[in-house]
């Protein structure tokens, strides 16, 4: 375990930024955090989490894939991929770190998504323990420990110091890069913080979700539940929940004709949209109820079906605070999963 005084945090960032791009959560003019490129003078946010999740680093909202040029009957395909640079993301919370595992299972299984893979390879994740989880947090319901997040390096922030512990080879490498700035230390302060966090987590209101009611093989049980009608009845069909979600991974591939060449790009898509998976006959899910059901069934049943029971929700709570009508996965779980308890 290494530590560095918080007063020298800028020094640490500067040292990291010497070798690779460094992104940290930064407050905007309205006090909401977003990951921004660190430069001299950029201060780290104290917010618990960023509005957008950290998935942007590996799976950006919009990404050019390739280009085509036509001349006569010839089509030239241009590979626009460039060698990616190393980058470090500092201050990723436990929930978002877990989301990478969920995305990995989608993008890194055969056929491997090389765009995603190259970013994953180049990115170093420095996670940060959550000293003050919010009431909307329920990561521990999914077995995530906000006191000990995963990642290449785990960091703990106390009143005075930042503690760092490497978990992977990449992390070791980064720690050795900043060795001169940090000092060796015991883990007493960290253990204390961990204990404190664990105590707080016990007090959070959403820790006991009926997760055992969901998971593999539950499709038939819930697909035709009458509750979907009421749950989805006021869904606006916007994409807020999917776009702030760290684990939503649907995208659309489209072509943009610039007049000289065609740029093929992909962008996030949302199963909540009427033009999602649009085919010649239209959208296969004609009503908002079906679209709504798809999203939550995917998180709670379909994904676990295909991924050894792993849920594709990490309990970050973003959809809880951002949904325009305050409908969210917790309400869905309580409504559907609660019915057998009654």
């Amino acid at each position: 375990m290494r530590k560095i005084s918080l007063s020298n945090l800028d020094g640490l960032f500067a040292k990291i930024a010497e070798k690779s791009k460094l992104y940290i959560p930064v407050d905007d003019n309205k006090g909401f955090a977003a990951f921004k490129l660190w430069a001299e003078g950029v201060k780290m946010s104290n917010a618990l989490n960023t509005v957008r999740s950290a998935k942007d680093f590996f799976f950006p909202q919009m990404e050019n894939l390739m280009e085509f040029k036509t001349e006569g009957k010839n089509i030239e395909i241009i590979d626009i991929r460039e060698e990616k640079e190393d980058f470090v993301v500092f201050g990723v919370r436990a929930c978002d770190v877990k989301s990478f595992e969920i995305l990995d299972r989608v993008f890194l299984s055969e056929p491997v998504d090389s765009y995603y893979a190259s970013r994953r390879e180049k990115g170093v994740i420095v996670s940060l323990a959550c000293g003050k989880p919010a009431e909307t947090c329920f990561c521990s319901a999914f077995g995530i420990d906000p006191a000990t997040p995963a990642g290449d390096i785990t960091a703990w922030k106390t009143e005075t110091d930042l503690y760092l512990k490497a978990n992977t080879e990449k992390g070791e490498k980064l720690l050795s890069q900043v060795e001169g700035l940090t000092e060796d230390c015991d883990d007493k302060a960290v253990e204390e913080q961990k204990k404190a966090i664990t105590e707080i987590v016990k007090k959070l209101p959403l820790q006991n979700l009926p997760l055992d009611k969901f998971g593999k093989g539950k499709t038939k049980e819930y697909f035709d539940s009458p509750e979907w009608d009421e749950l989805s009845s006021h869904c606006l069909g916007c994409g807020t929940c999917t776009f702030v979600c760290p684990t939503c991974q649907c995208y659309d591939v489209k072509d943009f004709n610039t007049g000289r060449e065609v740029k093929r790009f992909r962008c996030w898509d949302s199963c909540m949209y009427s033009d999602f998976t649009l085919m010649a006959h239209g959208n296969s899910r004609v009503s908002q109820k079906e679209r709504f059901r798809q999203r939550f069934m995917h998180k709670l049943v379909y994904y676990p079906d295909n991924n050894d029971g792993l849920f594709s929700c990490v309990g970050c709570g973003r959809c809880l605070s951002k949904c325009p009508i305050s409908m969210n996965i917790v309400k869905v779980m309580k409504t559907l999963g609660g019915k057998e308890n009654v």
Partner: protein
Amino acid sequence: MQKITRDALIEKAQTLLDSGVVTRVLGWKKGDFDYDVTPALFTDIESMKKDFVFGDFCGANFSKYLLKETKKIGVEGKVLVFLKSCDTYSFNQLLTEHRFDREKVYAVGIPCDGMVDVNKIKAIVGDGIVSIDDSAEVIKVETLYDGVKELNKADILLERCANCKSRKHVAYDELMGEDGEVIDSNRFDEVEKLEKMSADERFAFWQNELSRCIRCNACRDVCPACTCEKCVFNNPNSGVENKAAANSFEEQMFHIIRAFHVAGRCTDCGECSRVCPQHIPLHLLNRKFIKDINSFYGDYQAGETVGSRAPLTNFTKEDLEPSEAVNREDK
């Protein structure tokens, strides 16, 4: 102003349900916390007594839900809807555009002294809100980390309520309590502030704001004026369909067109800004159009009356020229 209580609304709903005037009620349903209120449809008084809430977090404008509610096939009777004063303008505007059947709705106007923005509370008290007591003017918020804090309601109002334009209900079948007045609000102050900036400053301001947009379309989907069956931005045949903005042009285009499509029809209900997950001040775009319309073509408030002709589907022979519009001194 007398405060309408949850019990009074439930009592009203019970009377109307019992007498058969309505068969269902559009209302607010309590969530896991004191602030995450969800719109819901109640069909019996028992479920209302259990889950119905009314308080400072019931900002949602129900007018747009009436489109779906009145089109339901096989559902008899009227739907009861509670409308705050600002909601009644949207209600009228939708009627003007023949978007729902007035006969299938029973509207009860409820007085409102402003709704509260939970984001403003969070900005003050931080995370970990355990409970919020909004029964009095001083709102008590208890958090995990800081104990109980007392907040002045005036400091944490939703933007649209802080600049409330009217406490007058322009449409209802029945009004609970007393009606308010149209307010001479300061809602155009911020627009004016922007207008006084240089073009470079304005450009930088909007670049900063719009670059945060994640194109979730919440502003569009919540908007009571956006009621197209198929939005141009969702239509692959429109040539401008896009799901994510590729660059600043597409950010600008979406927001200009979104605001333009509701120009003259926007009642300034403020739902777009309320729901924006990135806190983009979208109302500043809509209010610019409203302000321009007022000064170019005379004061016009969308939704004030049913059947009024919107400024963009109207003209006079003496209208000012576009060149005059952008070069006016007094703007």
